[in-house]
């Protein structure tokens, strides 16, 4: 891995962190309609996985998907505009925080129906293969999704048809407030791969290089026609399930939160880059300043963008307009 590549990893981790910190602030100020499911704490696994695939590879996300397009290199201005419901957003304000589908970086869509994207990802991979390309599909979902029927149907189908999919479970330990340890029958979610006779790998989700390496191996298998893999990145979200959605219950201990924050990838990856001589603290500070400026620019762009015309609510239903929409 070249120093430039590692620096790009660092840059994308920071982009996600600062983008989401800005999103939280916008929720708190009442500028972001609705709530925001942040990726803060999970940046390393997102970036490690996204950088192991090409920009033209497909990607399927879920409701917690600010990080996925950023990890794959999307323009933050149009993502932030989408969060604010502006016409300049990636979906012209129709999608919002939970459906940041940026076609330009291979998104196939992000759905808030948990587990629903698993078979869709298999379909994208099937199309890639049948059309004679070597594209793969990277499918993100959480620990909660692996209890859905769609997860099991999708994995079985991807396995028997040897589809080029990388199923990446972002195990942040909780489905809203319910601990995975209490509701998932296996010790590791990756163990579920055994039921479908595909590789199942557990990786430290706070280490972007480790995630990059295991996903790269899965990508290689997929491109060679050897079928899907299930990768479980153990990670943690620092904030609540969604900013703007107060959860009164105390479902995590302060010690647990502190232990995970002590392994914050924003801090540990920076230390590693310095220790390994990849970059000087000054050079990394420059990256920090540049990313802060990018995020500030994205917020300014989103704020200054207009809302869509209300008439747009009645468009985009069918390929050619059908009467009776209103």
């Amino acid at each position, binding site marked *: 891995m070249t120093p430039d590549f590692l620096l790009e990893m660092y840059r994308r981790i920071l982009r996600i962190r600062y983008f989401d910190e800005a999103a939280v602030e916008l929720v708190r100020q009442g500028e972001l309609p609705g709530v925001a499911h942040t990726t803060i704490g999970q940046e390393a696994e997102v970036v490690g996985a996204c950088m192991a695939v090409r920009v033209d590879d497909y990607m399927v996300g879920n409701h917690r998907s600010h990080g996925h397009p950023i990890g794959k290199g999307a323009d933050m201005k149009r993502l932030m505009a989408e969060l604010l419901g502006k016409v300049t957003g990636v*979906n012209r304000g129709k*999608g919002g925080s939970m459906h940041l589908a940026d076609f330009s970086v291979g998104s196939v*869509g992000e759905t808030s129906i948990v587990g629903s994207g698993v*078979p869709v990802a298999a*379909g994208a991979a099937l199309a890639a293969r049948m059309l004679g390309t070597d594209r793969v599909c990277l499918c993100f979902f959480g620990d909660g999704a692996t209890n859905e029927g769609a997860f099991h149907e*999708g994995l079985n189908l991807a396995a028997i048809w040897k589809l080029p999919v990388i199923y990446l479970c972002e195990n942040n330990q909780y489905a809203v407030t319910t601990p995975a340890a209490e509701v998932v029958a296996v010790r590791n979610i990756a163990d579920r791969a055994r039921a479908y006779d595909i590789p199942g790998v557990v990786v430290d989700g706070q280490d972007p290089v480790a995630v990059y390496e295991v996903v790269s191996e899965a990508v290689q298998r997929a491109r060679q026609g050897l079928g899907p893999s299930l990768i479980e990145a153990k990670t943690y979200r620092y904030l609540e399930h969604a900013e703007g959605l107060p959860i009164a219950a105390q479902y995590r201990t302060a010690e647990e939160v502190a232990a995970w924050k002590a392994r914050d990838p924003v801090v540990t990856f920076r230390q590693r880059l310095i220790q390994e001589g990849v970059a000087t603290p000054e050079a990394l500070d420059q990256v920090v300043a540049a990313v802060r400026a990018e995020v500030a620019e994205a917020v300014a762009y989103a704020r200054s963008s207009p809302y869509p015309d209300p008439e747009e609510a009645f468009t*985009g*239903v069918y390929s050619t307009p059908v009467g009776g929409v209103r």
Partner: protein
Amino acid sequence: MAVMTYLEAIRAGLRQEMQRDPRIVIWGEDVGVRGGVFRVTEGLQQEFGEDRVIDSPLAEGAIVGVAIGAAINGLRPIPEIQFGDFIFPAMNQIVEEAARMRYRSNNDFHVPLVIRAPIGGGIHGALYHSQSVEAFFAHVPGLKVVVPGTPYDAKGLLAAAIADEDPVLFFEHKAAYRSLRGEVPEERYLIPIGKADVKREGQDLSIITYSLMVSYALRAAEALAQEGISVEVLDLRTVRPLDRQAILETAKKTGKVLIVHEDNKTGGIGAEVSAILAEEVLFYLDAPIRRLCGPDVPAMPYSPPLEHAFMITPEKIAQAARELARF
């Protein structure tokens, strides 16, 4: 022109479209080697290969979900759901993913997908092989719902559904598969989705219907003609979008409307047609709108007399029309 059954027309349509477009792929339960439980896809795997006609796992959610992902990314999938009754495990994928994709992405993605499934009863299929499921999907913006009632329409609507850039549910009546015959051109033709068709001109009253009930309504109209009652039969052909203009025109012409469908009455297509009539042409009507529908029981009962009690027949249609004509 060749005379074909409804089933043969659909199979001929599938074959013709697959010959034209290599992006078309079919998968579903038992569609390959066996050619489907009703044998609609018989011979297609032999002709087009195992890569284009695929036996899938018994998992409707995945069958449709994979088709959605493939359709977004350049294929033209035609998944088959073995029976309409089995479509509910795929409901999430159809409603949440297929129907919403274009809107959610503001036209960046779309889902050119045709989901074929047999619907309807009268074949002793009992509770879980007889349901009419069209109204569930007709409620959902973003979907199109096609319900052909003749072999000719089935082939032409199938070609249009495959050419359509949006997700289409193509519901075939299983009792029509081998019982309905008609002339079907060999060459390709498209019947526009969303256009109803006057299957018989008449003056005294209009029967608005679709699917298998079209042929039953025509038989009823023929019987009533002997009694001097002139019945117009409007075949909706598509229940989403509905052809409002055709509905209004026939109602204005005859002034009396009988809506017939096998699906149960409450919240059915007839309710929507009635509402359109009430909103638009109330003062053209010479009698209250009448609906003849399947009863509001949870599903088709098994025992023959019970099934008969559930099913709409040409005789029941004739009786309802006779009463309406007398009003």
